[in-house]
């Protein structure tokens, strides 16, 4: 079985940071909600019932070829900081991190598949792929579903489809989403217009970091809302088309900015590089927004392309639980900002002299 420390050391295979694959769409994610027939849903089940379901499903999951030698834990076996790290890696949900006995997660070695047991539903099968690969992500999650369905009796109805704890997930039980980096649309003030259009297509949009309408780091998630009345293929096709369109708008906005406001764009990227490379106290909000500018600069040839992977990794590792786990001790929030600044400085020092040269040359 994979240890927590191994999982931490190995970046997930979807964190590839390949600029050609992920200039705008960072990741695609599909999750399938499934429940067993003979036990109440986790929110209504008694502890004993939850534990029985957990034991049975965990065993079947670990036996699946695709999950071989993966990470498998009951949440009660993990420390709070470890649970938070899994949340920050999108391997479990915030809601599930609050649970303990009779609830857990099985993750494959590549961290491309993660199955939450006894979250809101008995099973939440999740697959993550880099770039815009919703169909591939669906097939990956479906491979776990098919592997389990001959062994576990899933609650499914010919008319209503898969029965879920919340009726908003009925039918396919599928929520598909993509994470997009949209600094071009934000800086050209086109973001609200585009997001409204996405909403009109019956899709949901939200900022990934930050509260309410604020989106830190210009990162957005687009997902389907309806799960009943259309096939998985229809949902994925519409979603892929809309996300593909948004990615094109974003690329156009970036090119227009580089052409018409080149000096302004270089100024933003250069200032972000200056702050990240020289600050000693850095809040997560500041880090996310500056890293967003460096990532943008890397896709526009202002800083080396390899900076895309560095940015994506720093966005992940500058989160509170990652900082605390990597520091190996309990840290206070103010101390966190110091550690964050230090980690970013250290990561960037090697790449930055070259980066700043690139900015000069692109002037």
């Amino acid at each position, binding site marked *: 079985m994979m240890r927590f420390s191994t999982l931490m050391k190995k970046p997930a295979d979807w964190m590839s940071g390949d600029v050609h694959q992920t200039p705008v769409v960072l990741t695609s994610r599909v999750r399938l909600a499934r429940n067993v027939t003979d036990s109440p849903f986790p929110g209504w089940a008694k502890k004993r019932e939850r534990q029985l379901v957990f034991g049975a499903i965990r065993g079947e999951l670990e036996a699946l070829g695709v999950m071989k030698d993966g990470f498998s834990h009951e949440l009660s076996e993990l420390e709070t900081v470890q649970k938070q790290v899994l949340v920050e890696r999108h391997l479990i949900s915030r809601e599930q991190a609050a649970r303990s006995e009779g609830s857990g997660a099985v993750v494959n070695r590549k961290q491309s598949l993660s199955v939450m047991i006894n979250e809101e539903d008995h099973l939440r099968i999740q697959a993550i792929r880099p770039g815009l690969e919703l169909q591939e992500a669906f097939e990956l999650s479906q491979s776990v579903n098919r592997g389990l369905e001959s062994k576990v009796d899933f609650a499914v109805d010919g008319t209503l*489809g898969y029965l879920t704890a919340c009726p908003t997930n009925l039918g*396919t039980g599928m929520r598909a989403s993509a994470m997009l980096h949209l600094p071009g649309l934000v800086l050209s003030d086109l973001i609200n217009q585009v997001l409204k259009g996405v909403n009109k297509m019956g899709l949901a949009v939200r900022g990934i970091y930050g509260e309410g309408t604020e989106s830190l780091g210009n990162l957005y998630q687009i997902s389907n809302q309806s799960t009943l009345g259309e096939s*998985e293929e229809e949902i994925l096709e519409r979603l892929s088309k809309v996300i593909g369109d948004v990615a094109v708008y974003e690329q156009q906005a970036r090119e227009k900015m580089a052409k018409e406001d080149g000096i302004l764009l270089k100024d933003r990227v250069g200032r972000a590089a200056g702050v990240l490379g020289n600050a000693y106290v850095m809040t997560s909000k500041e880090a996310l927004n500056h890293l967003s500018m460096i990532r943008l600069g890397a896709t526009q040839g202002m800083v080396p392309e390899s900076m895309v992977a560095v940015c994506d990794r720093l966005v992940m590792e500058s989160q509170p639980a990652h900082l605390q786990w990597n520091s190996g001790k309990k840290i206070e929030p103010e101390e966190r900002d110091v550690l964050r600044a230090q980690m970013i400085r250290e990561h960037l020092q090697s790449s930055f002299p070259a980066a700043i040269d690139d900015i000069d040359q692109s002037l």
Partner: protein
Amino acid sequence: MKCDSCQEKATVFYTQIADGQVKKFVLCEKCANEQGITNPDGLLSPGELMGVGAGAEGDSDVLPFESAEECSACGFTLEDFRKIGRMGCARCYEAFGSELAMRLPSMHKGMVHQGYLPEGLLKEQALRGKVEALEKELREAVESEDYEAAAGLRDTIQELKKGGKGGGK
């Protein structure tokens, strides 16, 4: 839960969908009988029932139903469902089916699953589609007084249903 017209225990749950507006009320059996709700053919027009004068009956679908107060499998109640919007177990979907049917249109693109199903259920679903088509033919045959065809159709349907029970999940 008490009846909307008197103080008796309510046993009939009535949902009216007209012009996209959903109206719900609950009645005891006596009041429901007086209103003609337990007999769909004897329904008053929605307008009359709501006490707002005659309504345009053609514009509305009236779904009279009785809904369970509690899921017999897991003990989750209709009140629980109304409060938290979630079900207690898979069987709750039968117990609170009518309440659910009312909520689905605002959540989803359709009311019927179109996606992936395990093989056993797929067969069952195909069979049901076949039976439904034949039943429609049967009704048409009866209407056109073609009793010979109707008898044949009836036998085929019965056979299919029998076979389906043996082979289904």
